């Protein structure tokens, strides 16, 4: 089974996000980038599928952010091929813009299964996974936690997660695109020594494809962090004093019966 995985770079939320001078876009000049979390899970799922049967894992990524680090890590974890798709622009690839070159790259690869993270936190006006599926004319289902390959290699059984830890089991005929929420196990750890070794031995396949789809039809007029205004009334003092205040509050509201 040939599996393709899309790895995206997203701004690391550990630093506060800045809005640029226009007031309507993120200022990514000072941002650090990390691999999108659900994409990392998708990679893990792909590697698990490969390990449980035969097949190859091809990672496809746009050349943006700190993608090289991510790609070497993927190689160290066991990805067989790494395809880096050129991205000439300075802005971060939005789902619509990213969909075309990525879809082209995937078309060339013609994988049996495409695993993409179900969402990325910087998505505002599009979701990449279903966009790719539609462009490739492949069936799509998302919010998947766990993928198992059937013996015939032509279908996979997936679990779609619903609230309350309810799972729906679905059988998907390949080829298909899946929006991964989580894999059967958390992403594996790969030590720095192996990443460094991958840096020496891995060759990226660099490809270039035509730029994105038409505009998304959404105009962003303003961007700002949520107002700090509507916040809780803070209770001050030591733990004992706070405990007292809370108790009084509860009593006032008639909750201590």
């Amino acid at each position, binding site marked *: 089974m040939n599996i393709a995985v899309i790895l995206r770079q997203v701004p690391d939320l550990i630093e506060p996000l800045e809005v640029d001078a226009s007031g309507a876009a993120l200022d990514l000049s000072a941002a650090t980038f990390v691999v999108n979390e659900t994409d990392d899970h998708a990679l893990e799922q792909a590697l698990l599928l490969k390990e449980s049967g035969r097949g190859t894992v091809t990672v496809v990524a746009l050349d943006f952010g700190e993608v090289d680090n991510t790609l070497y890590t993927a190689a160290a974890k066991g990805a067989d091929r790494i395809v880096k798709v050129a991205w000439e622009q300075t802005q971060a690839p939005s789902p619509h813009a990213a969909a075309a070159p990525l879809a082209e790259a995937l078309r060339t690869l013609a994988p049996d299964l495409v695993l993409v993270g179900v969402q990325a936190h910087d998505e505002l006006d599009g979701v990449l996974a279903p966009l790719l599926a539609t462009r490739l004319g492949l069936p799509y289902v998302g919010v998947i936690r766990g993928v198992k390959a059937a013996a015939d290699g032509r279908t996979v059984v997936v679990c779609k997660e619903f609230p309350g830890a309810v799972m729906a089991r679905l059988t998907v005929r390949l080829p298909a695109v899946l929006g991964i929420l989580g894999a059967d196990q958390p992403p594996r750890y790969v030590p720095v020594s192996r990443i460094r070794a991958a840096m020496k031995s891995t060759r990226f396949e660099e490809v270039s494809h035509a730029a994105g789809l038409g505009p998304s039809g959404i105009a*962003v007029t303003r*961007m700002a962090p949520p107002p700090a205004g509507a916040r809780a009334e803070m209770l001050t003092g030591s733990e004992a004093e706070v405990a007292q205040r809370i108790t009084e509050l509860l009593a006032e509201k008639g909750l201590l019966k």
Partner: protein
Amino acid sequence: MSTSDILVLAEIQRGTLADITSELLAAARGLVSPSGGEVVAAVLAANGGAFVPALGAADRILLIDHPALANYSPEPYLAALGEVVGARAPRAVLIGATSMGWDLAPLLAARLDAPLALGCKEIAFEDSALRVTSSFCGGKMLAELRIDRTPAVLMVLPGAYRPGETPGKAQVESWKLSASLEPAAIRFDEFQLPEAGDVDITQQDILVAVGRGIQQKENVELAEQLAQVLGGAVCASRPVVDQGWLPPTRQVGKSGMTVKPKLYLALGISGAPEHQEGMKNSELIIAVNTDARAPIFDIAHYGAQVDALELLPALVEAVQARKG
């Protein structure tokens, strides 16, 4: 030709109408009132008639019945919804940001080449354009969007709207599907339910919620003590359940339960949007976290920047003393 109707996807979960539906209807109501137009609820099921009584807030209830729609799977649902939207040309389609919604909204938008907005918290009309306030980047950023094109597909965050009081005309209409819903590459097999828990947290009036801030499994015991003294139950955010300190039936949040207790005491919970989704409609939210910038304080009514572990025993003592 586009109408000013707003189409709402009524979400059905294992035979019941999900709460999100009434929230979407309220959002839709807010949109149609000034502009005119109808609130249309689309019910995709094998036999949607059963849900009509619960959809009183809609003006028109489209019953799209087909055996292939008995259980959710993307292709037949997309085909049916796409047909309806294509035919009725509403101004906007409101879909909940739920497991089903995360499939259908983007697929529908892609199929129709329609604009898609994620994380919608507020929707309004501004002249003929839609004005949407969306939350993204893990809740750390709000974006204001303007959408001119029609139809627009909007994924609405659960809890962004409260169910409305206004009843609609509630006209029932049966939709005859012309699209073929089969064959499909994706087939629903069955639901896998979690093991029955001892406590149904959605039925509790008082919830003591623990997050990563309690540090260790042993400290859940402290929370249990407080819950007992208050006459409530313990629930948790996702990280705590992932660690195995509490079963999944106690999980509150996007992929857990949605709760609306009289008191939600959040201890050591940072309040990421996924968690907030599950509890933001609680009547009284008191949050305790050592980080003053924790997002939980945005939705809490009261907060304290103290160590939850230190507070717990003190609170147990204080409540016990007060109760006498």
